[in-house]
């Protein structure tokens, strides 16, 4: 993994330290965030990206024992052109706070939409200095999506062109009327889909807790709130203790699995704090079933695994966003209609002329 990161990582931005405790000409430390693959190769909503955050001293050596609070903001909301996840725009993707025993933190995540993500970091160094930095990660849209929308816009233009031509030439609205009726029938439904299925989709805000005990280690995993929702953070907490309730030392890996595709969308490996807990807040951005999988390893070699099922509530996009997108899709139809109507003029004149001469 280290070699892959070294080979593929791109330096997004060096967050220069702002040492608050003392005024210095040279920054005492800096925060570096790298991704693998590089930003240009990341496909939103597809690529599982390894993100590595390092706290380096002036000589570029990782500072062990730093404590980092990371807050990843999703790209700001676009004024006109939306993404396919409008409820994800301008929200928080994940938050975590942990100690970095070796001066670096590595996690994997699928970044859901195009745009600029801001990594707001606050680092407390072992000597008490505080550093703040906000590196950014800019992602371009999936090239396939760009191609697909161009094809669709081209088809809509062709439809408008053909319609304008036919109206100018003949003027038979029968087919259009039939299509309108079909469309009306299709839009008659008011239900919502692709969210948790069935009437029992949980919507309460009480946390769900799963407990498992093995090898003398008791692990408690909590997801709060129980019903995760697109655009909202779900706080995941793991606590590991002995049977007597004393905290244990170790690491926990957490994978958030998108069950429809059976792929991870987040993967963390976090050290347990002194009180035996690890906590991360993350946004599950697809309104479907997910599962949180935990693998705890204690420092003395014991291991406990457990899973927490977690449905995610999806929402229909706001009406204003839908109408904006519809308006954009209608532009080529209108333009095509005007061009086709104009192009059909000579043919229509010729047709009238031949009809008169026949009469």
């Amino acid at each position, binding site marked *: 993994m280290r070699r892959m990161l070294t080979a593929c990582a791109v330096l997004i931005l060096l967050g220069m330290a702002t040492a608050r405790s003392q005024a210095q000409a040279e920054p005492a430390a800096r925060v570096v965030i790298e991704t693998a693959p590089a930003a240009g190769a990341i496909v939103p909503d597809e690529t599982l990206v390894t993100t590595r955050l390092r706290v380096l001293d002036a000589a570029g050596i990782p500072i062990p024992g730093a404590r980092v609070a990371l807050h990843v903001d999703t790209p700001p909301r676009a004024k006109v052109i939306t993404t396919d996840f*409008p409820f994800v725009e301008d929200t928080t993707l994940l938050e975590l706070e942990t100690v970095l025993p070796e001066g670096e933190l590595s996690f994997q995540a699928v970044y859901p939409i195009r745009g600029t993500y801001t990594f707001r970091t606050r680092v407390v160094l072992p000597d008490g200095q505080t550093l703040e930095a906000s590196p950014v990660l800019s992602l371009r849209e999936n090239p396939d999506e760009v191609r697909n929308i161009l094809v669709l816009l081209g088809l809509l233009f062709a439809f*408008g062109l053909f319609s*304008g031509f036919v109206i100018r030439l003949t003027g038979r609205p029968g087919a259009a009327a039939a299509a*309108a009726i*079909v469309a009306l029938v299709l*839009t008659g439904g008011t239900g919502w889909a692709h969210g948790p299925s069935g009437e029992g989709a949980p919507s309460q805000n009480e946390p769900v807790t799963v407990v498992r005990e093995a090898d003398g280690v008791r692990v408690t995993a909590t997801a709060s709130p129980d019903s995760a929702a*697109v655009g909202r953070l779900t706080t995941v907490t793991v606590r590991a203790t002995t049977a007597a309730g004393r905290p244990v030392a170790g690491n926990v890996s957490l994978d958030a699995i998108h069950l429809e595709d059976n792929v991870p969308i987040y993967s963390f490996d976090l050290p347990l704090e002194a009180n035996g807990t690890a906590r991360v807040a993350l946004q599950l951005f697809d309104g479907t079933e997910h599962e949180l999988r935990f693998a705890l390893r204690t420092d003395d070699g014991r291991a406990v695994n457990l899973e927490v099922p977690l449905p995610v509530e999806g929402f*229909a996009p706001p009406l204003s966003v*839908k109408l904006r997108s519809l308006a954009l899709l209608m532009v080529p*139809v209108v333009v095509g209609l005007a061009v086709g109507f104009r192009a059909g003029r000579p043919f229509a004149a010729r047709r009238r002329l031949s009809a008169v001469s026949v009469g």
Partner: protein
Amino acid sequence: MSRVTTTPNAVSRHAAGTLAWAQASVTFQVALVLVTAALVLWALFFSNYPLVHDTFHELRHSLYFVPCH
């Protein structure tokens, strides 16, 4: 003083009527095409009707500015 008035004959009345009908018909047809296109696009990409929404879910996610959820 004599006053001369002209009244449209049958042919010109018919021509005027045909022109008015044609103009109204074109406006109606253009409106119908636009409304139909908007309704079909709405049904495909923005409908909450479960069957339609789920059928075109992947399609929506594969288009640059079509929102899904």
